[in-house]
C-alpha cells in the first residue's frame, strides 16, 4: 500500500474528490469561503496527483512514446457478476485525465460568485469530478458504465439548483437524454458480455488485456500458468473451463474487460460476429446502441438538442465542465469502445459516422450564426466543433484502394483527439468569458453588447485570443485538430472534405461577428453599463492559463501529440490490419453493401 502502486495512486486520483465530498458532508458547518477554499484545495491536489504522472522514473509515471496501457491494476469488485475494479492509462486517456483535473481546478475557481447553498454545491462538484476522472481511467466496461452514471445526478442538481430561469427543464432534459443513451449502452454491454469468451484469448492477449501480469524475464505462457494457479475467482473459473479439453463442450467465460473485448472484437471469427437480428451481427447492433449513447453525449445532430438548454441554464463553472469535459466522454467512448470492440460494424457504418460528424459541423455552425444569446451561440459552436471529433474518428480510409495504409486515418484520429483537448480548452474559456460579463451586466443578448474593449481591455484581449482559438486560427490550438481532420477526410471522401473545410468559413463568420458585436463598437449602451469593471485577479488567473495553453498547443502541437500519438497510431494500425484480413482486395463491393443482410431483411418482410 504505497503511492507507487497504480492501484493506490489511480484510485486516489479518482476517489479523492468523493472522499472529500463525504467528509464535507459530515463535517460541521464551515463558512462559505472556507468550503470553497477546501474544495479548491482538493481539486488542486487531484491536479498535482495527475501531473505527478509526468515525473519520469518515479514509482509511478506515464511514459511518453509507449503505446500500450500503462499502470494497469486489476482487483475483484463484484466477482458474482464478473465485474472487476480495473483501471489503467494510455495515451488516449492520459491527456483527458489531465484536462479534467485542470478544468476542475479552474471551474472551482470560477465558482466564487456562487453564494447559494455552497456546501451542497461543493459536495456535488466533487462527486462530479470523481465520475469524470473515473470514466477516463476505467477499463472494465461495467466500472465505466457505473462511473458514467455517477455523473448524472450531481449534474442534474448542479444545473437544477444553481442554474438560470429555465433550469429545471434544462436539467431534466439533460438527464433524460443521457439516461436514454446509457440504457441503450447497458443493453449493448450485456450483448457483448454474453457473447464474449475469455478462453479464446491466447497467453499474450491475456497479458495485453491486463488480466495476467508478467514479471520481467518471464514468458507469457509461464505468466498465464502462474495466474491460473493463483486462486483468484476469475483464475479459478478460467482453470475449470480450460480443463475441459473438448472445445465444443467448453462453456464460455464472459468478461467485462474492455481490453479483452477489444481483442475479441478484432480476432478471427470474432464471437461478436454471430447473427443476432434482422441479418445483422451482435456487434452491429451493439455498435448502433453504443454509438447512439456516446453521440448523445458528444452531442451530434440530431441528438444535440439537450445541449443548448443545459449550457444556457447551467451556471458558468458547470458550463465549463460540461463543454470542457463531459462532451469529451462521448468522443472517448467512441474511440475506446465503439471502434476497437465492433470493428466490423464500424467498417460498415463508417460513412454514416462521418456523415453525422459533418452534419453536426454544418448544423451547429448555422445555428450558432442565428443566435442572439451569447451563451447559446457558444453552445452551438460546441456542437459544430465536436463534429470534427466524430468526423476524425470515423474516416476509415484504411481500405483496399489505399493499400490498407493507416496513415490518413491515424491523422484523422489524432486530429480528433487533439480537437477534443483543444475544444476542452477553448470552449471552457469561452463559457468562462461569457460568464464574466454576465456576472456584471446580467444579460447575454449579443445585440445589446458593444464597446467592451474600452471598458475592460485586459478581459477583451483574453477573450479575443480564446475566441480565435475556438475559430481555429493558425498558431492557436483549434487550428491543429481541424486541419488534421480535414486533411484526413480528403483521402476518404472529397465531398465531405470540401464541406468540412467550408465550415471553417461559417465558424469564422459567427465568431468574428460575435467579437464585433460584443467587444468592438464605440460604446456600451446596454443595461447595467456602470457595472462593467475590469476583470479581477481571480478571473485573470482563470482565463490566462487557458489562453497560454491554447497558444502553446497551437505553436508546438507535439507537446500533446508526443503523449497521445503512439497509442492512437497503434490502435488505428491494428484496425487497419483487421481490415486487410477481413476485407481483402476484391471483396470490397460485397463488404460495403452487405447483401446478405439486405436479403434477410427483405425476406422477413
Amino acid at each position, binding site marked *: 500500500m504505497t503511492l507507487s502502486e497504480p492501484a493506490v495512486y489511480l484510485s486516489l486520483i479518482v476517489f479523492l474528490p468523493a472522499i472529500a465530498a463525504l467528509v464535507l458532508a459530515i463535517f460541521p458547518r464551515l463558512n462559505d469561503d472556507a468550503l470553497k477554499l477546501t474544495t479548491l484545495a482538493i481539486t488542486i491536489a487531484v491536479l498535482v496527483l495527475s501531473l505527478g504522472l509526468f515525473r519520469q522514473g518515479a514509482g509511478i509515471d506515464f511514459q511518453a512514446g509507449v503505446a500500450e496501457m500503462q499502470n494497469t491494476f486489476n482487483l475483484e469488485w463484484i466477482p458474482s457478476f464478473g465485474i472487476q475494479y480495473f483501471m489503467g492509462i494510455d495515451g488516449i486517456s492520459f491527456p483527458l485525465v489531465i484536462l479534467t483535473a485542470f478544468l476542475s481546478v479552474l471551474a472551482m475557481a470560477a465558482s466564487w460568485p456562487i453564494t447559494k447553498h455552497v456546501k451542497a454545491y461543493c459536495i456535488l462538484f466533487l462527486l462530479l469530478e470523481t465520475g469524470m476522472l473515473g470514466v477516463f481511467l476505467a477499463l472494465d466496461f461495467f466500472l465505466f458504465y457505473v462511473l458514467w452514471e455517477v455523473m448524472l*445526478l450531481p449534474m442534474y442538481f448542479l444545473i437544477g439548483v444553481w442554474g438560470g430561469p429555465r433550469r429545471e427543464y434544462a436539467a431534466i432534459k439533460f438527464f433524460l437524454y443521457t439516461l436514454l443513451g446509457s440504457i441503450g449502452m447497458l443493453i449493448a454491454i450485456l450483448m457483448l458480455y454474453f457473447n464474449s469468451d475469455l478462453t479464446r484469448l491466447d497467453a499474450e492477449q491475456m497479458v495485453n488485456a491486463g488480466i495476467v501480469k508478467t514479471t520481467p524475464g518471464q514468458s507469457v505462457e509461464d505468466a498465464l500458468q502462474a495466474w491460473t494457479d493463483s486462486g483468484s475467482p476469475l483464475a479459478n473459473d478460467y482453470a475449470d473451463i480450460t480443463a475441459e479439453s473438448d472445445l465444443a463442450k467448453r462453456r464460455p467465460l464472459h468478461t467485462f474487460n474492455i481490453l479483452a473485448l477489444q481483442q475479441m472484437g478484432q480476432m478471427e471469427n470474432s464471437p461478436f460476429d454471430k447473427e443476432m437480428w434482422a441479418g445483422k451481427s451482435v456487434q452491429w447492433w451493439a455498435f448502433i446502441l453504443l454509438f447512439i449513447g456516446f453521440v448523445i453525449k458528444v452531442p451530434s445532430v440530431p441528438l444535440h438538442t439537450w445541449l443548448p438548454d443545459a449550457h444556457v441554464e447551467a451556471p458558468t463553472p458547470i458550463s465549463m465542465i460540461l463543454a470542457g469535459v463531459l462532451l469529451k466522454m462521448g468522443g472517448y467512448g467512441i474511440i475506446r469502445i465503439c471502434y476497437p470492440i465492433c470493428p466490423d460494424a464500424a467498417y460498415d457504418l463508417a460513412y454514416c459516422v462521418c456523415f453525422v460528424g459533418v452534419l453536426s459541423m454544418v448544423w451547429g455552425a448555422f445555428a450558432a450564426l442565428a443566435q442572439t444569446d451569447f451563451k447559446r451561440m457558444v453552445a452551438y459552436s460546441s456542437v459544430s466543433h465536436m463534429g470534427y471529433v466524430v468526423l476524425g474518428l470515423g474516416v476509415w480510409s484504411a481500405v483496399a484502394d489505399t493499400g490498407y495504409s493507416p496513415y490518413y486515418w491515424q491523422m484523422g484520429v489524432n486530429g480528433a483527439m487533439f480537437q477534443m483537448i483543444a475544444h476542452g480548452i477553448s470552449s471552457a474559456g469561452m463559457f468562462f468569458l461569457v460568464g464574466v460579463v454576465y456576472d456584471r451586466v446580467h444579460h447575454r443578448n449579443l445585440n445589446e453588447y458593444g464597446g467592451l474593449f474600452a471598458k475592460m481591455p485586459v478581459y477583451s484581449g483574453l477573450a479575443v485570443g480564446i475566441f480565435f482559438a475556438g475559430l481555429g486560427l493558425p498558431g492557436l490550438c483549434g487550428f491543429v485538430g481541424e486541419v488534421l481532420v480535414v486533411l484526413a477526410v480528403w483521402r476518404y471522401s472529397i465531398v465531405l472534405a470540401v464541406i468540412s473545410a467550408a465550415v471553417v468559413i461559417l465558424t469564422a463568420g459567427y465568431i468574428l461577428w460575435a467579437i464585433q458585436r460584443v467587444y468592438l463598437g464605440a460604446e456600451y449602451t446596454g443595461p447595467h453599463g456602470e457595472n462593467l469593471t475590469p476583470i479581477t485577479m481571480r478571473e485573470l488567473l482563470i482565463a490566462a492559463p487557458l489562453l497560454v495553453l491554447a497558444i502553446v498547443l497551437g505553436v508546438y502541437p507535439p507537446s500533446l501529440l508526443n503523449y497521445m500519438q503512439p497509442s492512437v497510431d497503434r490502435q488505428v494500425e491494428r484496425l487497419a490490419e483487421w481490415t486487410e484480413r477481413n476485407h481483402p482486395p476484391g471483396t470490397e463491393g460485397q463488404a460495403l453493401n452487405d447483401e446478405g443482410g439486405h436479403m434477410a431483411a427483405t425476406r422477413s418482410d
Partner: protein
Amino acid sequence: MNLSSVVDNLISDTLGSSLPLFCPELALCATIVLLLFVRIFRSGSAIPPFLLALGGAVAALWLALPQEGLASWTAIEPQEIFTKLLVYDSLSAYIRVFLLGFAVLFIVLSHLTGIADREDGQDYFVLVLGATLGMCIMASANHMLTIFLGIEMASVPSYVLAGIVKGRSRSSEAALKYAIYGAGAAGVMLYGISLLCGVLGSAHLPTMARELAALDIPNMIASGGDKRTLMVLALGGLMMGAGLAFKLSAVPFHFWCPDVFEGASAEVDAFLSVASKAAALALLLRVGFGLGHVPEDPQSIVADARAPVALAAVTTTSEPTLFQKQVVQVEVGEASGSPLSPVRRFFVILVAIISVVTCTFGNLAAYGQTNIKRMLAYSTIAHAGYMMMAVAAAVALIDGRGEQSQAAISALLLYLAVYLFMNLGAFAIIAFLRNSMQSEEIKDYAGLIRTCPMTAVMMTAVLVSLIGLPPLAGFWPKLRVLQSLYLAGGPLMMVLLVVAAVNTVISLIYYLRVAKTMCIDKPPDSRGPVTLGFLPAAYVFAVTLPVLLLGILPEECAKWADEAARHLFG
C-alpha cells in the same frame, strides 16, 4: 396399512422432521397467542405489546437463520414436510429470513411512528405477525390447499391493517375496498384451483405436474384430441392467475392498490408493498415451477412412468422396451418438446404479458399523482412488473438450462432484498414526515432539504435507487433481471428486455420530480419547522444506508441470493 400405522407415520413425520423445520413459524404462533392472552391479566397489560412482538419476531428470525451463517443456503436439502403440504428448501428459507427480518424492522418502525399505541398495540402486532405467518406459508407452499390457506392467512389481517387507523373514513374505505376485492379474487382463484385439481386428480403440486406430463398435452394438441380438458386446464390456470395477480397488484387486478395505499397508513403500505409482494412472488415462482417442471426425483420417475411410455407408444408402434423407455426419458428431460412445455409456455407468456402491461401502466400512471403514497403505490405496481419478468425468465429457462434459470431466481431474490430497504426507507420517511407535518402531498415536501437535509438526501437516494441508477442499490437487481431476460433469449424475452429498459427511462421523471420538489423548490412560508427527532432519524438512516452501501458493494448480498437460488428446482 391400518389406521394405527397411518397415525404413527403421521406423528413421526410431524414430530421428527416437520416441526423442527417449522420452528420460526411456531415462534410466531406462540407470540400471537401470548399477545392475545397477556391482556386478560391485569399485570400483563403493563407489558408493552411492542416488546412482546419484537421479542417474538427476533426469536423467529433467529430460528430462521441458517445455522452456518447466511452463505450456507446451499446446504439445505429440499424436503417436503407435513405430509407434503409444505416444502422446505433454500427458497423458502431465504424468503422466511427475508420476511422475518422485515417484520423485525417493521415492528420497530411501527413503534417509532406511534401507530401501534398501547391500547391498539396487541391487535396491531397480532395482525402483523399473523400476516407474516401466512406469507411464510405462501413461500413454502407445495399443495393447492396450503397455497390458498397461505394467501388467505396473509390477506385477512392485511384487510384489517389497512383500516387500522380508526375514525378516518379514507382508511375504512380502503379496508373495505381491499376486503371486497380480495374476497372476489380469492373466490375466483379457489374456483380455478378446483378446476385444476379436478382434472388432475390431486392438489399436490409435484403430483399435479406429473399428471400434466402424463396428459401429454403436445400430443393432445397435435392430434386434436380432447379439447375440453385443455379448455378446463387453461381456464383453471387463468383463474388461479387472477388470484395471484391480485396479490401481486398486477394489471388488470391492481385497482385496489392505489386506493388502499392512499387510505392506509404509510407503515401499512410498507408492509403491503414489501412483505406481501415478496410472498406473492415466491408463490408465483412455486406455482410456475411446481406445475411447469417435474422434479428429477428418481422414485417419482419409477413410480410414474406413464408419461414416457405414452410418448414411446406414439413414436414406436411396437411395445416399448426398457431401452426405449430410457431413451425417451432422456428426451423428456432435455428436448424442447417435453410434455410440460405447453404448460410452461402458457405460464411464461401469461406472466410476460402481464409483467409488460403492469410495468408500463404502473410507470405511466405514477406521473399524474399528487399524493406521495399513491405515487409509490403505482411505483410498487411497476416494480412488481420488473420482478415478474425475472419469474418469466426463470421458468422459460428451466428446460435444460437450469443454471441460468437459477441466475434468474437469484436476480429475483436480490431484487427483493434491495426492494425491502428502498420501500421500507421511503415509507418510513413518509410516516415520520406525516407525524411531523400532517401531510402526504408531494407539493408539501417542497424545500425539505432546508429544514431536514438528511431526510431529504436519504429520500432522494431511495428514489434514485428506485429508478435503478448506479451507484445505488436499485441498479444491481435491475441489471440482473435484464441479464436473465437476455439469457432467456427469444423474441418474447427481448420485448421484455426492451420494455424494462424503456420503463427505466419513463420512471425517471416522476421519481425525480419528488426529489426535485424536496431539493430544488422553495419551502412554503406557512410551514412550521419539520423535525424528525433523534430516534426516527437514526431509524431512517439505518434503513436507507444499505441502499447506498449495497450500491457500492453488492457482492455479499448477491452471493447470498446466488447461494439460495443454487440447487433450486434442479
